[in-house]
């Protein structure tokens, strides 16, 4: 490793610790860190500063009932889905497709563009008699999005996994945890500079998916978690 490259990565480390670096810069920094213990220690020291900074945030108590609402949502999500609830599952997954905005309860269905989007979506599904197409973020333990999982409900149902986690490389295992607790091996993704894809047909309906995991020595563990059906339980 050249001295110049080391110095360059050293300059990036505060941004790496702050989580504000992406793409090729992040890839270059992480590639260097993988082989440089000195920079890893340097990064750890920066990360401690960031930790302390976050702890400076002022405490404010949320509205009364907050705790009950959180626990109630955990209970609803913790219950297993029963057969025949695909429609509600589809609604919940569609909310996930719309992303965090939907999670915030922002109504998205009123505009002309969205009605046209819905029609386009319906026509695409009709092509092969499918009933749903959606996507979930693939995230690491800190919630950073490092890829996506696209899912299709039809005959057959399938998932397509897209990973973008530079600079990880090599073979990464893809497994699916079903709602019944069974682990299915879907295959492996060969990552090159952090990028890789895998498509796999499912031996059943898409709603069997509870958690999809991509795991390997370099990317760590990435997970996509299916949202619950609203109103279950």
């Amino acid at each position: 490793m050249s001295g110049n490259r080391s110095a360059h990565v050293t300059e990036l480390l505060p941004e790496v610790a702050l989580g504000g670096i992406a793409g090729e810069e992040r890839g270059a920094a992480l590639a260097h860190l993988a082989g440089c213990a000195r920079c890893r220690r340097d990064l750890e020291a920066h990360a401690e500063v960031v930790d302390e900074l976050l702890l400076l945030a002022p405490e404010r108590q949320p509205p009364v009932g907050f705790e009950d609402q959180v626990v109630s949502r955990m209970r609803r999500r913790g219950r297993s889905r029963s057969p025949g609830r695909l429609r509600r599952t589809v609604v919940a997954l569609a909310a996930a497709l719309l992303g965090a905005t939907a999670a915030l309860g922002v109504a998205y269905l009123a505009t002309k563009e969205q009605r046209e989007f819905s029609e386009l979506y319906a026509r695409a599904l009709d092509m092969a008699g499918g009933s749903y197409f959606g996507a979930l973020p693939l995230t690491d333990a800190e919630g950073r999005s490092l890829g996506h999982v696209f899912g299709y409900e039809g005959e057959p149902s399938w998932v397509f996994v897209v990973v973008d986690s530079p600079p990880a490389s090599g073979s990464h295992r893809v497994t699916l945890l079903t709602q019944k607790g069974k682990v299915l091996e879907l295959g492996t993704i060969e990552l090159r500079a952090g990028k890789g894809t895998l498509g796999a047909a499912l031996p059943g309906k898409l709603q069997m998916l509870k958690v999809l995991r991509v795991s390997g020595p370099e990317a760590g563990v990435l997970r996509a978690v299916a949202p619950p059906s609203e109103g279950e339980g």
Partner: protein
Amino acid sequence: MSRLRRKRRQSVERDQRYISTWALTDESLLAGLASGDPEQAAAFVRRFQGRVYGLALAVLHDPAAAEEVAQETFLRVWRHADAYDPRRGRVATWLLTITRNLASDVLRLRRSDPVDPEDLVALADPSPDPHPEEKLVAEESRRALLRAMSELPEDQRRALVMAAFQGRTAREIGELEGIPLGTAKTRIRSAMLKLRSALEVPDER
């Protein structure tokens, strides 16, 4: 291990001797949360809800959005509890990192006027109910950090606050502040190095 982390661990060990009969550690509560025990889940939420909601509110300045982000943070922690790695940091900072990431996603989606970083710098309120394992060292670190932040040049302080609390990248900071990307990066790096020095985290090279 840095001096700061060593001191914190010593304080944790000291505190845990005093509180072991009546309080659970953060890690124990997290394990309880992961197990699905409703009482432990409620205890976990109670312990951290002020911090999580406080950070979300500081970033978003919108109580309803902050509450939703705070709820989603706890749900995400519950779902990913088995991925928590104590070697990478404390439960509180893991939780706050997730909160920060979710809140910054909301900020980007809204594309609204960003919160004035100076508002976020008004972070000086001491915690009204310090968490047991932190109280011996936390105030010392907090004071050192606040003092160091107050001594930063204003442009560096703004850049750091935008990066640390709003999850802004250097490119976004450059655009928001009307400065070149390189200048934004320099401000962030300079600020971080000064805070690091103030916290006496040694450069072990």
